[in-house]
């Protein structure tokens, strides 16, 4: 099903207006982060600090461009994901011990510490950040009119790959531990599985996904700044995850797309009160669709 939509996108892509391509690309980037959050959420953990990895991925991608002259989009995403995964691995030792609100707030604290560090680093532009040069695909620089489309296609490809990987993971024994951990950790331990290990692994995967998303976003926007590590950015990701629901690996991307659209609509329709519009939209979604958007699809499927 995922492959089908990818094929559809590839076919329809060139006919989309450029600004729409941009929005879809960003949706893929955010969707990746949300995918990671989905994994964590299934284990009952809410991370308020995914922005940490998103930002790390972005800066890593920017750094290899700035200091090593690398501009290949896939390498950027790979480096972003790897750096983020490494950091997640280290931090996981600390974080895997916590649950509930403490997990959330500790992850937030770590994300804000990165923010503070980046703001202090004038070599990286402090709060102004710096720009990333346009990306190349396998060494080829696409002609100006095709840039948006090629970035979109790369994004779609990587996102689909990640979605498939996560989908497979969820069917492995470790992947299936998540809802069990959410429900009753002690029983999990009695059964001989390590809850801590599962959480650690999940955290690393989520971190890697967020890192890839960050690198992608950085390339698409062309600019990186410490705001990417701020708690409000994490808030956006959580918004998207809840919006989408945890029903399927495709859900986060749909949610991200919807979020991006609502955000832009709010800016356009009510430039003086867009926050209110956004807040109202979110509130209505929470009240009427507590299982997220995906539940609409499943509800329909069940009835038919």
């Amino acid at each position: 099903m995922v492959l089908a939509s990818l094929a559809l996108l590839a076919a329809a892509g060139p006919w989309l207006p450029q600004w729409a391509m941009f929005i879809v690309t960003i949706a893929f980037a955010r969707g990746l982060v949300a995918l990671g959050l989905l994994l964590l959420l299934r284990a009952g953990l809410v991370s308020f600090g995914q922005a940490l990895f998103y930002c790390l991925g972005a800066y890593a991608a920017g750094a290899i461009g700035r200091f090593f002259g690398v501009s290949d989009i896939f390498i950027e995403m790979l480096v972003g994901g790897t750096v983020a995964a490494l950091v997640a691995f280290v931090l996981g030792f600390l974080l895997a011990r916590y649950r509930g609100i403490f997990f959330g707030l500790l992850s937030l604290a770590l994300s804000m510490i990165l923010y503070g560090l980046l703001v202090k680093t004038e070599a990286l532009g402090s709060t102004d950040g710096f720009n990333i040069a346009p990306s190349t695909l396998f060494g080829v620089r696409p002609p100006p009119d095709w840039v948006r489309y090629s970035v979109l296609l790369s994004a779609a490809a990587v996102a689909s790959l990640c979605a498939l990987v996560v989908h497979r993971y969820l069917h492995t024994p470790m992947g299936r531990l998540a809802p069990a951990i959410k429900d009753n950790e002690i029983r999990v331990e009695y059964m001989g599985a390590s809850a801590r290990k599962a959480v650690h692994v999940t955290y690393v995967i989520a971190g890697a996904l967020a890192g890839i998303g960050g690198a992608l976003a950085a390339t698409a926007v062309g600019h990186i700044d410490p705001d990417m590590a701020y708690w409000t950015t994490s808030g956006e990701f959580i918004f998207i995850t809840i919006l989408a629901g945890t029903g399927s690996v495709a859900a986060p991307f749909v949610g991200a797309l919807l979020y991006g659209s609502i955000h832009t609509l709010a800016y356009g329709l009510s430039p003086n009160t867009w926050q209110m519009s956004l807040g109202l939209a979110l509130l209505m979604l929470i009240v009427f669709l507590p299982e997220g958007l995906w539940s609409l699809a499943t509800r329909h499927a069940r009835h038919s």
Partner: protein
Amino acid sequence: MDGMKHVVLALAAAALAPAAAAQEPVKIGIVTFLSGPAAAPFGVPARNAADFVIEELNAGKAPAPYGKKGFGGSPLEMVIVDEAGSTTTQVTEFRNLVQRQNVDLVVGYVSSGNCLAIAPVAEELKKLTNFFDCGTPRIFEDASYKYVFRTSPTATMDSVGAALYVKDAKPGTKSIAGLNQNYAWGQDSWGDFELAMKTLVPNIEVKTSQMPKLFAGQYNAEISALLSAKPDVIHSSFWDGDLEALILQAGPRGLMKQSLTILTTGETAMHKLGSQIPDGTVLGARGPFGPYAPANQYNKWFHGGFVGKYKSEPNYASYQMAQAILGVKLAWEKAQDANGGKRPSNEQVGAALENMSYEGPGGTVKMAIGKGHQAIMETAYGQTRLAGGKLTVVNVKRYPAEKVNPPEGMKAADWIKGGFKAQ
């Protein structure tokens, strides 16, 4: 989208009433802060200035050479976007402005981070974009652009001007200290000032550099640290809420009496805090704006009209927006004339704007550096004096443009380090 269209059309209709021209309107995208803490000191005054100027231009009421209606006879239509939100959001909205709303050009951006992010996108989309306020010199130092312009001087000018003023007003200065917000603007402002002071007074002592978080709001600890350090001069690039909080918290504690305090963007506080600012505080307006604006016909028109319409004083953000629009108008009309009266392309307007010199409510604007894309202007600083309940500035010193801006092709930091000499 329909709602937005109606608003824009209404705005255009109101502005167009007197104009009889059947020419296609010129759509200007205006981007500035409509929400958040930057709205009050920059965004809203700038938007008001834009509203006022566009209205006047459409009615053909501006003084020559800006007398033609709209841009070369074509009525102006304003599309406004809020600058609040992350750079990702801003880049998204810029692309929307250009590709979905099809604006003819964009004037905007206060935040340096946004300017840096938008510049390459403007080049990519080949849309003439005029930054009216953001301060970082990096834009034209890091890269060259064809479509990006800035009709206001960079923040370097504020710091260098401040250093020169300190040397003039308090020649025996031996020590300085800083109180700046801990982000790029504050760091750069302090960095430039410190560098400039070290160049002007080689053995100057830096007592302390306080860098509280942006929007911290509470500065008692920092004020205590400054009071105990007892520097001769204190430099601060605080703006709006933070600036006003600082004045309200430091004034009663006598900080401004103990040290000569320079507030490089202090002009915005003048109008609201007036009597709360202790005498002798040095205020900057990021250029010859506000109380430092010349008494030329453009200022009379702009200042008088603005106060008449909004019942409040225009601050430097308003001036910057006004001169940004006027500059583009002049370039547009020049290009149109050169194009045989036909609507000019962005490239033609850009070519006309390059290296242009023009007059505005703040005085002369010379697009002299950044390969003709970056403006330089003179600057001025003065000290406050409360006279008869009204806040005025005395001891005003002006510094010509070439003395406070780096020359073409030279990075600001290098220029300061090299003793302000042209290469």
